C-alpha cells in the first residue's frame, strides 16, 4: 500500500515533449484513472511510474522514496498490459508465480498466493493451462492474477480492456472494481475510454497534449468541468457547444445564439458571467440531457427552442435527436414517447440551469 507523488514530471523524446510538467498526488488505496485521447501522455506517465521510461525532468516518489533511478523490479509495482503479455511457454500458474519464483519465495507460500489470487479472479480451474488455450477475458484475468500474487505497493493498468469486445469489457470493468475493493491496492489505470474512467475511478485525471486538464472525482468532472476539453471529453454523447454572445437584457443577461434567438440566463449564473460578457469569443456548453422534449411544468431557467430535426437515434430508454443550429451540430436526449421525427421541426426545452459558458480564448469554463 502506498502513495505515489508525481512532481513536475517532464518526458522528452528528442525534441518532442510527451509529458510537459505534471503534478499529481495519488493517495493510499486510491484508484486513479488517467484518461485522454491517444498521444496525450497518459501511457508515458504510467510507464514512468513503472520505470519502463526514464524521467527527463521532475521526480516520481512511491511512499516518499524518489524512484527516478530505481529499476522497475525494486519499485514494488505490478503492471497489467493491454495485450496481456503472458509468457506463452508457461502455464497459468507458472505465469502468475514467475515473479515470486525469481525472488525465491518458499514453494508453499507461492502456491498459497497463486491459489488465493486464482480464487479472487475465479480462474482456479485454469491454472494448468497455457495462455493459448484461454479466451481473451481469461487471459486478462491471468494478467491481473500475475499482478495480485506479487502483492505490490501499486498496480499499474495500461489500457487493460481495450482488446476485449464490448460486452466482456463491461464485465471485466466490474471485475476490476471488485478486485480493487478486495485488495485495496493503490491503482493507476490508463484508458482512452471516458466511460471506463468514470465508472472505475475514485479520481479521474484528464490529460491532453502532455498536460493535466483537470483532476477530480468522476461526478465533479462531469458537472463542473474546468476546461472546454474536459467538458467535451467526459460524457457521451458529448456536450453541445454553440458560439454565443452575452447581452444585457434588463437586469439580467441573455445568450444570443448565432441565429438571433435570445435565451435568458438564470439570475444566479448571470452574476458569474457578467465580468466576461464583453468577451467576443464565448461558447455555450449544454449537455444533451439538458435539451429535452417539452414538459408540462417548465421551471425557471428552462427555455423553449424550435429546431429542425436532422437525425434521430432511438436507444430504447431514450432517443437521441440531432439537429443543426447555424452549423453547430447539436444533440438532445428526449423521451421516446415524445414522438419526434426526422425531417420535421421540433419544440425542445433547454435547461440553462445546467449551462456552461466557455471562454474560447483561454479554453476555460467560466
Amino acid at each position, binding site marked *: 500500500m502506498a502513495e505515489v507523488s508525481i512532481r513536475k514530471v517532464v518526458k522528452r523524446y528528442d525534441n518532442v515533449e510527451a509529458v510537459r510538467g505534471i503534478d499529481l498526488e495519488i493517495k493510499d488505496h486510491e484508484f486513479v484513472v488517467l484518461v485522454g485521447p491517444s498521444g496525450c501522455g497518459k501511457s508515458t506517465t504510467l510507464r514512468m511510474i513503472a520505470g519502463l521510461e526514464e524521467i527527463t525532468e521532475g521526480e516520481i516518489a512511491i511512499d516518499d522514496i524518489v524512484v527516478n533511478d530505481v529499476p522497475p*523490479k525494486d519499485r514494488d509495482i*505490478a*503492471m497489467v498490459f493491454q495485450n496481456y503479455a503472458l509468457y506463452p511457454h508457461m502455464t497459468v500458474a507458472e505465469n502468475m508465480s514467475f515473479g515470486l519464483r*525469481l525472488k525465491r519465495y518458499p514453494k508453499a507460500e507461492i502456491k498459497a498466493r497463486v491459489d488465493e489470487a486464482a480464487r479472487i479472479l475465479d480462474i482456479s480451474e485454469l491454472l494448468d493451462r*497455457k495462455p*493459448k*488455450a484461454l479466451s481473451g477475458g481469461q487471459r486478462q484475468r491471468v494478467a491481473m492474477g500475475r499482478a495480485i500474487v506479487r502483492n505490490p505497493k501499486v498496480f499499474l493498468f495500461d489500457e487493460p480492456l481495450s*482488446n476485449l469486445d464490448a460486452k466482456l469489457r463491461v464485465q471485466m470493468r466490474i471485475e476490476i472494481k471488485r478486485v480493487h475493493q478486495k485488495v485495496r491496492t493503490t491503482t493507476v489505470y490508463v484508458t482512452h475510454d471516458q466511460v471506463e474512467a468514470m465508472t472505475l475511478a475514485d479520481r479521474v485525471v484528464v490529460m491532453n497534449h502532455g498536460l493535466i486538464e483537470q483532476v477530480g472525482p468522476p461526478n465533479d468532472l462531469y458537472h463542473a468541468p474546468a476546461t472546454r476539453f474536459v467538458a467535451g471529453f467526459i460524457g457521451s454523447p458529448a456536450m453541445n457547444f454553440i458560439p454565443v454572445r452575452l447581452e444585457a437584457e434588463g437586469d439580467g443577461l441573455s445568450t444570443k445564439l448565432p441565429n438571433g434567438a435570445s435565451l435568458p440566463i438564470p439570475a444566479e449564473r448571470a452574476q458569474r458571467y457578467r465580468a466576461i460578457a464583453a468577451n467576443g469569443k464565448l461558447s455555450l456548453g449544454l449537455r444533451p440531457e439538458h435539451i429535452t422534449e417539452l414538459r408540462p411544468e417548465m421551471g425557471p431557467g428552462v427555455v423553449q427552442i424550435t429546431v429542425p430535426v436532422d437525425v434521430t437515434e432511438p436507444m430504447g430508454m431514450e432517443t437521441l435527436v440531432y439537429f443543426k443550429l447555424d452549423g453547430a451540430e447539436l444533440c438532445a436526449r428526449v423521451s421516446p414517447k415524445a414522438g419526434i421525427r426526422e425531417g420535421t421541426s421540433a419544440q425542445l426545452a433547454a435547461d440553462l440551469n445546467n449551462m456552461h459558458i466557455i471562454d474560447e480564448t483561454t479554453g476555460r469554463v467560466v
Partner: protein
Amino acid sequence: MTGTTIDKAGPSRAAPKYGSMKRDRLWALRWSYFFLTLFAIFFLIPPIYMFITSLKTSAEISAAKNPWWVFNPTLSNYIELLGSPIYLNFFKNSAIVSVSVVVITMLIAIPAAFALSRMRFWGSATLATGVFLTYLIPETLLFLPLFKMFAVFNELTGIQLLNRWWVLLVVYPTLTVPFCTWIMIGYFASIPKELDEAAIIDGASWMQTLIRIFVPVALPGIIAATIFAFTVSWAQFLYPIAFTTSIDQLVLPVGIITTLIKGDVFNWGQIMTGALLGAAPPLIIYAFLMDYYIAGLTAGATKG
C-alpha cells in the same frame, strides 16, 4: 429469410458470369502440384544418380551401359568406406567440428541478438547492420588473409594453427555467427515488447529475461539458426581445404576428394557413396527438427 426477393436485373438482362471459387482453387492446386513435381524431379536427380552409382562396381561405371540402371548391384563401396578408419575419422572430425561450431555460434549469437534487438544502446542499430554486412564478404576473399594471419601468429607465438582441425572452430563461426545473429535479431523483434517489460517488472534481470523468456519463446528461430549453422559447418569446403592438409586432420568433404581422387583416377563409386553418407546427418537433423521449426510457439502470448 422469407418474403420478397428483389428483382434487380429485370427480365431482359442475362445473369452475369461469376467465377467459381472452387474452380479457382482447383486450378491453383493443379499449378502448385505441377511446379512442385517439376522441382522435385530437378532436385532429386543428382542424389538418385549418386545412389545408383554408389551401388555399382568401378568396372560397371566405366562400361558404357545405361547409367540409370544397376546391372550388378553391390554394397562393396559401402562396406569398404565404412570399414575404412580414414573415412570414419573424416566423419568424426566433421561431426566434432560441426556440433562444436553450432554450440559456439549459439552461445555468441543469441546473447548478441538479444542485446542488439532489446537493450537499446548507443550505436546498436549500426552494429546490427554491421554484423550482417560482415556476412556478405565471401570466404574466397578471406581465406588468403586468414592463412597469412595464422602464419604470422605462428611466427610470433610459436603456436601452430595451420593443419589443425580445431582451427576450424575459430574460423567457421566467422561465417555462422553473423548470419545466425541476424536471424535471431529478426526473430526477437517479433516477440512483443511487453513480454520483456512484464518480465522486468516481475523482477527478472536481463540474463533471466533472455534465458527464461526469450530462449523458450524464440525456440523455432533458434532451431532455424541451428540448422543453418550446422549445414554451413558440415558442408564447408574452402576453409578446411586451405587450412588443413594432413589426412588425420581432414573433414569429410575435403577428405573424400583428397583420398578418393588419386591423380587423374576418380574412384566414382566410393566418391558417390561417401558423399551420400555425408549428406545423411543434415537430412536426419532436418527431419527431427522440422516439426519444432514449424510449430508456432508464440501463439497465445498476446491477443489473437
